[in-house]
């Protein structure tokens, strides 16, 4: 029918952000987990600092359990997956039952991973389903605006996360380029001035990560 409400535009954007957050933090967690097995038991403390989340965890085991699977921990991967689900469940008409089913499957996979003796293998199924969701959304959703809003959410989340992890500037430049090419197609409200600022920041020799995080967080919802 080709009409989308403000509320659903917002939900699509956050669906993109939360799916990306879950996908990327599982990948990062897998690296940290590997290191914590027999190299650096306190790796999680650095991780919390980089993510700007409080280190409320008592040990690496506690971190692995609660950061991944506790719904009481608002920063956990599971909590973020629930936020993705909460947005997706009210978007069936926009994204379709087929795409939605992969978010549902990711949720089941998360529940299974929580009781698995090899949680990383379980979490892999979560990322598999999120990747399948993105693929299905790209392939199956007719409205290009809907696909583009999800993608914009993904790219903004990715730039935010990469900046927090102090990733290689080239990776940030690539994602900023993609975002610039995509954002107009989404018809989402954003600030041209702030987008130019993001593009300027990623080109600097000394990457100002904190400033970049601030700039990317303020990009959407403001047309000044």
């Amino acid at each position: 029918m080709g009409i989308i409400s403000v509320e659903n535009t917002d939900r699509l954007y956050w669906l993109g952000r939360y799916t990306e957050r879950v996908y990327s933090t599982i990948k990062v967690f897998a690296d940290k987990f590997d290191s914590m097995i027999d190299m650096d038991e306190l790796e999680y403390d650095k991780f919390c600092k980089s993510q700007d989340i409080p280190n409320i965890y008592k040990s690496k085991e506690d971190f692995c359990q609660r950061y991944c699977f506790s719904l009481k921990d608002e920063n956990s991967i599971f909590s973020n997956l629930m936020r993705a689900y909460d947005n997706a469940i009210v978007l069936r008409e926009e994204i379709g039952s087929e795409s939605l089913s992969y978010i549902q499957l990711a949720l089941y996979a998360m529940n299974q991973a929580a009781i698995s003796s090899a949680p990383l293998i379980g979490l892999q199924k979560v990322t598999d389903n999120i990747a399948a969701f993105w693929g299905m959304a790209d392939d199956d959703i007719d409205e290009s605006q809907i696909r583009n809003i999800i993608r914009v959410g993904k790219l903004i989340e990715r730039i935010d996360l990469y900046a927090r992890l102090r990733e290689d500037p080239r990776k940030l430049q690539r994602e900023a380029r993609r975002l610039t090419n995509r954002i107009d197609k989404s018809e989402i409200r954003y600030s041209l001035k702030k987008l130019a600022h993001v593009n300027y920041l990623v080109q600097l020799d000394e990457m100002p990560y904190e400033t970049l995080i601030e700039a990317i967080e303020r990009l959407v919802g403001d047309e000044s």
Partner: protein
Amino acid sequence: MISYMDICGKRDRVEDMEIYTGADVVNEQLARYGVKFGIYKNNEFKEQLFPFDMIPRVIDNKEFAYLEKGLKQRVKALNLFIADIYGEKKIIKDKIVPEEFIYAGSGYLPQCEGIVPSKGVYSHISGIDLVQSKDGTWYILEDNLRIPSGASYPMIVRGIERRSAPSLFTGKHIEDNRNYADMLRHTMDYVNCGGHTVILTPGRYNAAYFEHSYLAEKTGAHLVSGHELIVENDHLYFIDYSGRKERVGAVYRRISDEYLDPMSFNEESVIGIPHIFDIYRKGNVALINAPGNGVADDKGIYYFVPKMIKYYLGEEPILNNAPTYLPYYDEDMKYVLDNFDNLVLKDVAEAGGYGVVFGNKMSKEEKEKFIAMLKAEPRRFIAQEVIDFIDIDIMEKGQLLPRKADLRAFVLMAEEPMVWKSGLTRFSRNPDSFIVNSSQGGGFKDTWVLSQ
């Protein structure tokens, strides 16, 4: 009467039945597609998968043709009744239905007086609950003319079954029930007053939210919440992300009358649309189903439906009501008191399997208390003979177990009434219970209507 075994063959072992291997796959797929309903327990919202049993209810084509005829007749009469009540009130003047049964019921809305909806259709989607007794007779148990739900479940499950157990459908001549969305779309378009068609939901935490979103997807209607719609210059508009207003001509509303418009009904409603009722009255938007339909599906009014059929159509009712007594009439009160243990008593204000008590299951004190209440408020209750309706097998832990099952048939009204060639078969999971409602733990089955 025909059963699954009759068309698929009886096997000695459950494991050898065609449905056995498909059952787990189907349930896994239902979970994948989030086929759920919401339930509030201790003030907390929970989503539950709707339990599905693979053994279908089977109705042969002759039997369904008979049901179809009876259902069309009933729904036609019910539509005429609603038009009459909010119009000339001939049925009251002619003393066929006592006026206290109209005006004292909570379903009657004085605000609807004199309104004729688009194309004169009141009950666009009717959910008629039936049971079949052991001698094969079908009885109507209840008419649902407000917001009957449940069609989405058999609709989605059929596609899943066909993928999961294709051989089950080969050569069986089963009517395809996946056309419900097309029928619904046609019904909505027929009354549309110009503009988009939307499905209005109270939101994600409604028990039937899955159905709202699934029907929106399949009909191509737009799923909206009340705050996304606005009445301006006597028309209804949807406001899109850019602030542009798009006219809406038909609203399949899945919120009840009282919450529809705070200016005309419950002023505390935050999910309704202010002034929508005014423009409905002016004929600028279709509301599906029409407000005020509750006047015709009240449990007290049920008793009078066969009389309505004779009165409006001049025909004998094709489908029977369950034998029903109105304690309001002295003669019926006497019968109810004399035969209390053999009857089921229903509070006319309740729904969803609540307010239903069986005379023979009450203690002495409970019975005395109930009879005192019955005498004090005879209009509040109806009494019915307990119909020993048929059991349909369900499969549980590798065993076949008989369970009570009803059928909700869906009748859609456009130019003419159309009966969906399927329905929602609900079953009780408790061996001692006749209550099949999903809110009380019941499950559902597919309903196969044979085409030959």
